[in-house]
């Protein structure tokens, strides 16, 4: 028996070894590399191995850092709120109002197809929509709602959050739909027999049972928004910044040590958030 188990273990390791190798070389080592370089020194042309805390002291003493981190959290929170409400509503509609599985699958696929197309193209698509002479402004003017074109539609926090919601709502829909499909319909029947109305069923039965799905969606959305560096650049017209942009700006200036220090702080922040969220859900059980 002992031998069989160790054989199983060996077999298992053989099977996962390609996975382990990829993750070791392209995930673990790069993180270690970044951690090491974050203590290095940069000159104008090169980076020099060293052990100094200057990159971190500079990072934490600069007021820009705090504004940028605050901005990042703001985008994450706003995006989370909208994607959560929209994602929940869409998933609820698909799971409880569509009656045949074929239609459920078809409509679900319709929601997922954009996910498999290019993010940058989907982002750029908003520009003719939101610009000063864009569709939104000209429509509103022709309806007489506004006299002057609105300037805050494009290249503003509004357009950044809009693009995030557009790109990432799907990450809410899928896990929430997945958990909703597993809710035993007889529980809802029982609630109705017990005299609960629609709102009570939603609040006391469906939402508590959907929480794991919401949590998984939240993990996706929050990490994607916090780690982003290009949506903010394109959609804010380089007018606002988040942590990702701070890092990519440093990279563009070849300031790798300071980019690394910011990256490490960002990674720790993201992992902290995930750690908190994982306390509420056991991912492996929910798959």
């Amino acid at each position, binding site marked *: 028996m002992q031998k069989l188990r160790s054989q199983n273990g060996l077999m298992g*390791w053989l099977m996962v070894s390609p996975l382990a190798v990829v993750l070791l070389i392209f995930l673990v080592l790069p993180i270690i590399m*970044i951690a090491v*370089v974050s203590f290095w020194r940069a000159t104008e042309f090169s980076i020099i191995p060293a052990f100094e805390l200057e990159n971190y002291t500079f990072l934490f003493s600069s007021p820009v850092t705090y504004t940028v981190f605050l901005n990042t959290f703001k985008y994450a929170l706003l995006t989370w709120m909208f994607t959560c409400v929209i994602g929940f*509503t869409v998933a609820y509609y698909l799971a409880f109002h569509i*009656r045949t599985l074929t239609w459920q699958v078809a409509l679900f696929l319709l929601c997922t197809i954009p996910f498999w197309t*290019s993010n940058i193209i989907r982002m750029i698509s908003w520009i003719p929509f939101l610009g000063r002479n864009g569709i939104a402004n000209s429509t509103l003017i022709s309806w007489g709602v506004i006299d002057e074109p609105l300037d805050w539609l494009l290249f503003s926090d509004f357009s950044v959050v809009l693009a995030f919601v557009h790109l990432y*709502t799907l990450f809410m829909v899928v896990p929430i739909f997945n958990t909703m499909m597993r809710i035993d319909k007889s529980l809802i029947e029982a609630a109705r027999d017990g005299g609960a109305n629609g709102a009570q069923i939603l609040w006391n039965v469906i939402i508590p049972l959907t929480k794991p799905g919401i949590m998984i969606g939240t993990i996706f959305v929050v*990490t994607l928004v916090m780690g982003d560096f290009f949506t903010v650049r394109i959609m804010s017209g380089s007018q606002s910044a988040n942590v990702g942009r701070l890092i990519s700006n440093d990279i563009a200036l070849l300031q790798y040590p300071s980019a690394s220090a910011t*990256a490490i702080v960002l990674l720790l922040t993201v992992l902290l958030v995930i750690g908190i969220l994982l306390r509420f859900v056991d991912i*492996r059980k929910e798959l």
Partner: protein
Amino acid sequence: MEPRPRSFYVLTAFFALFLLFLYGPTLTIAVLSFQGPGGGLTFPMRGVSLYWFHDLFEQQAVGDIWGSFRRSLVLGMMVMVTTVVVSVMGGLAFRKKFPGANILFYLIITSLVIPSILISLGVGLMFSQAGIAVHWATSGFGSQLTWTLPFGLLIMFAVFNRFDKSYEEAARDQGATSWQTLRHVVLPIIAPSLIGVALFGFTLSYDEFARTLLTSGSKNTLPLEIYGMTTNVTSPVLYALGTLTTVFSLLIIGIFLCVALWTTRRKAKAGSDAGKGML
């Protein structure tokens, strides 16, 4: 059937708006890519023409679009095949306990949630310090795998969580070896999901650029080319390119979905007729 409640109609309207929100902008640039030669980045349309598509085929107008498209295609295939094979092996391994399974599981989750720019930066630094030149087929390939493999594995975990082990036991009772069980029982049953994994592998790689940004070397992939264009190209040629790659993506998705539908149908047809009666 009981009549639809009023909430159904409200939610249907909401869902329709959601779809409009998802597809509307892309449709807009599809229309705008047919701008006349004098047209700009937004409405009104100044005539209808294929001018901007034509422009794409002229090398000097924009960078090396076709070269980057070929590279993206090859890279997408490489990532797709690797993702399918590694995910299936990983999924099978995770069904049994092996030492370190938990650590590996958390590494997979980390790979999924880590900000993409860290992979780009870390792999780029690692290669440059080791004195190896970054190249899309080596460092770019590996970096993309850190994004596609977690998706593939999560799908495999979901598949095996629902897998009925009695099929395997039945095969084993009939004297099948473990390889025969895998080849003739397990793989055919999970085949439709593998098509899903392949679809994720290809499309996520084909559109990926955050993790490829610092790891692809001097030769760009298509998303990197487009990313570069967003800052300096201000003509509808950008829309023409966007429309073309979106159409290409949709074609790929369509092919995958048809294959998935076909295998599911075939599986249903070849299924058992137990319990259906003699007549």
